[in-house]
């Protein structure tokens, strides 16, 4: 190194940094390419009718309204499961737990739960909720499965939000004579609320896009009308895409509908992530405690 001139070292640096830039460009190109392609091909299929009508003519015409509603039911159900459990677990991690073997086991559990493949969640949901609890293939079974799937996401975001609340807040509250629970409820949680919300939005986005966990627990190819109870099966956007693209007898004829459905799903999922990212960036900028 000492023998190479400064100019040569500079040149090498510029070359390698240019390579990194190219790698980043390829990644962004993949994202941009996919989004643009779906936008161009899907925009033509979008219409008021497409969003508000059920499928017609053995799925070759009409809209995707029941699938949109199904996805909303499933994700709302999932967040109803994951939010209380996730925030409670995060409160344990941030407010109650002390370093040690117990905490290690809990963290390992959460990390590994996050790594369980989505199709295994599907099998689990099928065995536990559909079979053992006899919920059948239903919104309830699908929501519970998705709720457990997004639990680690919600825990992670909520814990980060709780940890960002400065300790001086807690000390002030405890010093005034509040109990630990009063401090958490009246001081820590309100301060962490925006962060927790961000986490739940990310969780909702994740739940809305998942297919494998609902394939055997909630989703069905076609329903007449909307579900009437949580024990009914539903249509869902991701499953609708999968079925139209692979299993129909009119795969080519339904291509425009497929693009349209993909566009709606992407807008929903990426819209939610974008909202979460913007809230978080704003928060990081404005928060000065």
């Amino acid at each position, binding site marked *: 190194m000492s023998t190479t001139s400064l100019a040569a070292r500079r040149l090498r640096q510029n070359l390698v940094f240019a390579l990194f*830039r190219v790698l980043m460009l390829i990644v962004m190109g993949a994202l941009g390419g996919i989004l643009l392609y779906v936008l161009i091909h899907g925009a033509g299929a979008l219409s008021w009718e497409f969003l508000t009508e059920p499928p017609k003519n053995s799925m070759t015409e009409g809209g995707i309204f029941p699938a949109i509603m199904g996805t909303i039911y499933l994700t709302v159900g999932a967040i109803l499961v994951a939010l209380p459990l996730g925030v409670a677990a995060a409160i344990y991690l941030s407010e109650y737990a002390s370093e040690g073997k117990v905490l290690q086991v809990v963290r390992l559990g959460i990390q590994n739960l996050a*790594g369980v493949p989505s199709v295994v969640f599907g099998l*689990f949901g099928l*065995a536990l909720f559909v079979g053992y609890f006899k919920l059948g293939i239903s919104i309830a079974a699908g929501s519970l499965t998705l709720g457990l799937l997004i639990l680690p996401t919600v825990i992670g975001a909520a814990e980060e939000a709780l940890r960002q609340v400065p300790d001086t807040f807690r000390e002030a509250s405890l010093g005034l004579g509040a*109990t*630990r629970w009063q401090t958490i409820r009246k001081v820590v949680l309100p301060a962490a609320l925006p962060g927790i919300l961000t986490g739940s939005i990310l969780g909702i986005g994740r739940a809305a896009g998942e297919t494998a966990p609902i394939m055997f627990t909630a989703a069905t190819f076609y329903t007449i009308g909307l579900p009437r109870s949580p024990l009914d099966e539903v249509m869902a956007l991701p499953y609708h895409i999968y079925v139209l693209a692979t299993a129909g007898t009119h795969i080519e004829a339904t*291509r425009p509908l497929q693009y349209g459905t*993909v566009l709606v*799903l992407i807008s929903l999922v990426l819209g939610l992530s*974008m909202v979460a990212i913007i809230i978080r960036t704003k928060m990081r900028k404005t928060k000065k405690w």
Partner: protein
Amino acid sequence: MMQFPQAQALRVDKADSLAEAVSGRRGMTSTQREVWIRRLFILAGFFSVIVMALIVLFLFKEGLGLFFDASVSDFLFGEFWYPTYDPPDFGILPLIAGSVAVTALSSFIAVPLGVGAALYLGEVAGNRAREILKPAVELLAGLPSVVLGFVGMVVLAPLMQEWWDIPTGLNVFNASIMLAIMAIPTIASISEDALHAVPRDLQEASLALGATRLETLTRIMVPGAMSGIGTAVILGMSRAMGETMVVLMVAGGAAQIPGSIFDSVRPLPATIAAEMGETPFGSEHYHALFAIGIVLFLLTLGFNLVAAYISHRFQQRGAATL
């Protein structure tokens, strides 16, 4: 005359707050409530561990049924997967080979791109570029897998067929590209966090000694962040191995040991997803699919434990360990 609280009631060490200790009479119930609330939260903390245990329990409960009739080695190393033949064959070697093929090739694509993107974000990009690119990488992570499967099927497959004149565009290579797109954000964001965690003074010391930014990067930052980057790569591989929709839609679905990257395969998750819908509840085939679930669960669990071990064992503990 002033009333002092009774001495035995003032037990600050047992109470959760001073107010409780002073108020004495109300103190006991309030303390008890705090204790119960604490227990409730500990339980909530353990919920993830409980769910993991339930997953293991139910996978084994439904999957072990297969092994009353078939041996474990016939299952793992059997070369034929003909679940609907009479008699059926439940050999998952071709399925494992399919999973290994797409996981290996996709890491081969995703690791340079993911780590490269992280190095760019962490060390090369200016503040303004980073503020746009980091969320963009997160958006990429948010793309639903069924969308990537769809794009692979509808866009990439016909192109591949045309370019290379191969019988099908639904093959190992196509699936690996789509899986790589899923794994890149995982690899990039964890690697970037790891780079970020390398102590600033090390970097400054290197630059002050006259090293260029590149030399500082390759000799200080990357070695310092190595455990994090290793964790990132393994988690990315784990994600690729467990991902379902992409391999279900794009890998082609042929249960064979691939001879080239243009062969069709049927990885483990794809097999479960494709066949569970048409399988009678409680049949041998149903048990076999759960047994595949066990294998898949253990494989990804193994990846995740190795990742956790690496990040724990080789954790950067201040500047002194370098």
